[in-house]
């Protein structure tokens, strides 16, 4: 019980620090950095539901991110509909897409599922590159609207974006926390552990894989809509690329899959690397962060296959001895 209490205290301290962070650090960059960390941590947490808990490795999550970005943007541009409504609509469309992807692909086992998701991701990107109504390769520049919460646009300060990103991040953690302790979480882990055994214990394996992918798609899509409103420009290369899917997967894997805090740790390590190298090397150093990611993943898989979070468990064990 004591450990639980400590956990809550640490959680409260962390939340307070993150809430006052933009009030102390007033320059745009530190705020932007933390917004990106929140965004990618949320993406990692969403990916973690299907990839980490249910063990179905997806390299196609950019589809859901892109769907979110394009749905809210197109609804705003073509219909003048609030991005918040667009965000929800994008989430629902992503669930629909998850079903379409899941229906054939869940019949594939292990690596074959991962390969199929790469292929589907590429199809989606090519499609968007050639779809004139949706801006094709030129992309979409969002209209500059008066700043307000309803318009989800803020031009004078990043602080509102910061708190919205924090909200999405907090929601992702709460959802993961709830799933981790509920029937869904147990069933996801059982499916990851042993398909046949899961079946024999009454689990409708395909149905629960769908649930995992649908939840994952929905939250990934929310992040996509937020990204579009934050950057105010989207094109197929920025919201549908394979590399985005891979980075999302890396964040969860580096931190530790199938845990609540793994993806959060992953984002806190990887996103600063990515943002700092971007500043340091500019366009000429594109990919430097990926080289470092690759190296970190190799180190992690050799020495600590459970991710960075596995290290903390190792320390706890030593303490106990």
């Amino acid at each position, binding site marked *: 019980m004591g450990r639980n209490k400590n956990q809550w205290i640490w959680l409260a301290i962390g939340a307070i620090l993150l809430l006052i962070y933009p009030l102390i650090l007033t320059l745009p960059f530190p705020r932007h950095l933390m917004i990106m960390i929140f965004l990618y941590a949320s993406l990692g947490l969403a990916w973690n539901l299907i990839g980490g808990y249910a063990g179905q490795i997806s390299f196609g999550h950019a589809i859901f991110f892109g769907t979110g970005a394009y749905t809210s943007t197109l609804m705003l541009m073509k219909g003048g509909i609030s991005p918040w409504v667009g965000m929800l609509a994008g989430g629902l469309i992503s669930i629909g897409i998850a079903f379409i992807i899941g229906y054939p692909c869940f019949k594939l086992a292990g690596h074959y599922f991962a390969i199929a998701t790469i292929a589907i991701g590429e199809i989606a990107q090519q499609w968007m590159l050639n779809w004139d109504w949706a801006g094709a390769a030129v992309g979409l520049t969002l209209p500059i609207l008066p700043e307000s919460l309803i318009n989800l646009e803020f031009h004078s300060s990043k602080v509102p974006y910061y708190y919205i990103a924090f909200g999405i991040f907090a929601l992702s953690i709460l959802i993961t926390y709830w799933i981790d*302790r*509920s*029937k869904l979480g*147990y*069933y996801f*882990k*059982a499916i990851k*552990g*042993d398909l*046949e*055994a*899961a*079946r*024999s*214990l*009454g*689990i*409708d*394996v395909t149905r629960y894989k769908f649930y995992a992918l649908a939840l994952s798609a929905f939250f990934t899509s929310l992040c996509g809509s937020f990204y579009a409103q934050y950057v105010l420009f989207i094109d197929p290369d920025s919201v549908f690329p394979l590399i985005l899917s891979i980075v999302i997967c890396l964040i969860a894997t580096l931190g530790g899959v199938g845990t609540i805090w793994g993806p959060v740790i992953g984002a806190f390590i990887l996103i600063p690397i990515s943002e700092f190298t971007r500043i340091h090397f500019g366009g000429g150093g594109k990919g430097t962060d990926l080289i470092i990611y690759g190296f970190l993943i190799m180190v992690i898989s050799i020495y600590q296959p459970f991710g960075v979070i596995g290290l903390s468990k190792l320390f706890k064990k030593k303490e106990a001895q």
Partner: protein
Amino acid sequence: MPLLEVQELSKRFGGLVANDRINLQVNEGEIIGLIGPNGAGKTTLFNCIAGFYPPSEGTVRFKGENITGLPANEVCLMGIARTFQIVRVFKDMTVLDNVMVGAFNRTNLAAKAKQKALEVLDFCGLSPKKGMLAGGLTIADKKRLEFAKALATAPSLLMLDEAIAGLNQTETAEAVELVKKVRQSGISILLVEHVMEVVMPISDRVMVLDYGKKIAEDAPERVINNEEVIKAYLGDKYHASRRGH
């Protein structure tokens, strides 16, 4: 009405007939032993009943309902639980969490599943190890956990696929006690073993399979003296010389 009724069940894999028109009944509260030499079709029959293979022909009825060809998860929901010959525990989950997965078969609430799982762990004598990762258990404990997982789904019929094979004498005795305890709690048991010493003392009836066919079904003490059974286990030569005496 029997709890489980298998009628004229056949299962073919290409040209191989793994089960040939099998009839089987399990009544409430019974322990039925299913024995036979390696490759006799015991596990195939198991898989057909539990919904892992669709039978080629024949029907499976459970509590009067036709469950032929139902998927495994629905069969489990109907009240048939099974264990696997090669243990399939969720090795990265704790013993308690393993059993909770089974308990979620009858509830959506984690608190209820946990309560049920703790009861089952206590029943199976696994309580002291509930916090361990299942992958770190000994083979005897893994088999026991396999048993506990199945029991947690709250079945009316428990099908054990060699739950005892490979255990040492003490462990075997404990496992046999456990099986008897389960029966006392009102659950029928279908037991696959190819170790005769285990099946004979606890089974009410024993069914013998050989080359996919049922060659005998009787009380244990009569089955061991059945000529066909002796022939299946020991071959024609022994059978012949025995007759000569």
